[in-house]
């Protein structure tokens, strides 16, 4: 019997093609918009994550919200974290001493020095080509040792393997001698900095403690530090870090600790995507709502136009539920068809966009199911009022109408 309702609904939709299509438009646009954004979002995540995997390990950067507190981190806290949280390679301050000068043979070079712990070697970007990276004991004892990038070594010494040489570091006044213990490959970061100035910036890494010594700054003044992750446990490490920091520093509940993933599909990108998704979701929801109201409207018109038909059906023995089902089926088929067209449109648009901006394209089968469910549900929901009206018609009155 239900097959009959569907057949009759289809023939009624077919006999009103133009009107049916216009009615579906809201649903089509709504579904197409949601799908496009969701598919592109998925593609963007997949693409970014894929690129990150090729870069290597990810890290988390922790800093303080200076509007909430002026507390700074201490090296002890960093050691605490390193010892107490599993699944990490290590922890290091991420202090950059810009505008430093390396001096040799009375020539001065602009330099950019990363001051950190030995764990910085594990950041996933450091590749030693000569000598070694500075060690934990170098840090503990504040040894004046330094690791130069290949470019820096070549620029200052004219050749690459400069292990055993020394450079002077001009720490805004005092000039301190540092022993070169290693040379590392240039990092993507170096190149990034280099692109900002005409001459390539010279990069070097040195123990945090030694730099503090040289510059005469207190070592428990760490403004931010990095945690190098072993694997895919970012969320867990993030929440543990937050609780350790808040406990040790007495900042519980103040929301003063800022944590971000410096590499990786970090929360900023994620939240931008989420904002875009919610905006489009709202637009889509409105469009679906308007579409639904359109369906309600057209079904009401259809019930009025077909009052006599309803009277005839009732006189022939149609029950209230038969009429209800017939009109609900018509509304649901209308929105379902709209949903399908919207889906094809959305998939096509997102496919084209993904190809053009080179994102990976993938349609989650769940999305298809959800579209089917939502579009049908809209029809049933907005169809119920006109369908009830039809079902409740008095057969005598209905038969009297022209």
């Amino acid at each position, binding site marked *: *019997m239900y097959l*009959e309702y569907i057949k009759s609904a289809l*023939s*009624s939709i077919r*006999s009103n093609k133009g009107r049916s299509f216009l009615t579906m438009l809201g649903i089509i646009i709504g579904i197409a918009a949601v799908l496009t954004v969701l598919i592109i979002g998925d593609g963007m995540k997949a693409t970014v994550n894929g690129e990150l995997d090729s870069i290597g390990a990810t890290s988390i950067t922790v800093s303080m919200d200076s509007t909430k507190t002026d507390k700074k981190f201490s090296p002890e806290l960093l050691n605490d974290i390193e010892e107490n949280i599993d699944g990490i390679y290590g922890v290091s301050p991420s202090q950059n001493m810009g505008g430093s000068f390396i001096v040799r043979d009375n020539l001065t070079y602009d330099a950019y020095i990363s001051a950190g712990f030995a764990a910085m070697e594990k950041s996933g970007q450091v590749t030693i080509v000569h000598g070694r990276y500075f060690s934990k004991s170098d840090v503990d004892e504040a040894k004046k040792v330094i690791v130069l990038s290949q470019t820096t070594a070549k620029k200052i010494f004219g050749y690459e393997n400069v292990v055993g040489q020394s450079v002077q570091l001009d720490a805004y006044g005092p000039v301190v001698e540092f022993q070169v213990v290693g040379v590392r490959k240039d990092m993507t970061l170096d190149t990034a900095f280099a692109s900002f100035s005409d001459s390539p910036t010279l990069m070097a890494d040195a123990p945090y403690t030694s730099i503090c010594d040289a510059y005469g700054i207190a070592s428990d003044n760490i403004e931010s530090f990095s945690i190098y992750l072993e694997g895919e446990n970012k969320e867990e490490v993030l929440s543990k870090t937050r609780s350790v920091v808040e406990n040790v520093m007495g900042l519980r509940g103040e929301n003063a600790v800022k944590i971000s993933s410096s590499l990786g599909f970090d929360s900023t990108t994620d939240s931008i995507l989420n904002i875009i998704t919610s905006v489009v979701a709202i637009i889509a929801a409105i469009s679906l709502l308007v579409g639904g109201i359109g369906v309600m409207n057209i079904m009401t018109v259809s019930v009025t136009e077909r009052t*006599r*038909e309803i*009277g*005839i*059906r*009732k*006189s*022939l*023995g*149609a*029950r*209230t*539920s*038969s009429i209800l089902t017939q009109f609900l089926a018509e509304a649901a088929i209308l929105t379902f068809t709209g949903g399908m067209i919207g889906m094809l449109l959305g998939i096509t648009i997102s496919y084209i966009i993904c190809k053009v901006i080179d994102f990976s394209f993938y349609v989650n089968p769940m999305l298809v199911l959800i579209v089917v469910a939502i579009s049908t549900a809209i029809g049933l929901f907005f169809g119920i009022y006109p369908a009830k009206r039809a079902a409740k018609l008095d*057969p*005598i009155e209905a*038969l009297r109408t022209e």
Partner: protein
Amino acid sequence: MKKLVEIKDVCKIYNPGENEVRALDHVSLIIGEGEFVAIIGQSGSGKSTLMNMLGCLDTPTSGKYFLHGQDVSHMTDDEQSDVRNREIGFIFQGFNLIPSLTALENVELPLIYRGVGKKERENLSKAALNSVGLSKRMTHKPNEMSGGQQQRVAIARAIAQAPPILLADEPTGNLDSGSSKEIISIIKRLYNEGRTVIIITHDPGIAKQAKRIITISDGKIVSDMMNPDYVD
């Protein structure tokens, strides 16, 4: 003769209170199985109201209606629908075919609501259309047929599922005399095949075709007699 329809002291009052209209005023009536009855009366006399009552489209303000001995005067809408589907074949003045459906589909409707399977439904409907001489018009839509043909489709629809009562309200009211004759002869044939037929009309010429003539005026039965001129 077994009682098929029994109406006891039925009133139908529209707009109760000041401007009330007594469309049926204490009407009592018994119709037996296999009768051929014409209900005749002037316009506004209450014929359609009686027909709606007999057809279980309406319920009386007071009084009782027994169909096959079952009280059908105070049923829910769905129960009434079921009784109509099972017991009554309607033939209306305005044919009342659904314009978007073919002749065959129109005839199938009551069978759909009865839950008859597709194959059997088709067979019954085709047989009904054959018996009214429309075997060549099955796939035609109502607007592709003449008035007489449309009314024949409506008759096929009324008899397809073999209900005990055929209820015709001014069946020839919209037809030319040629088609009218055709329709009346079909209705007579159906009576001769054993069906109970009730025709409602204002036309004495039509009423004279029936075996029993009931005259109503102002909602009351004023005469109820066997037709002396009836010819088989």
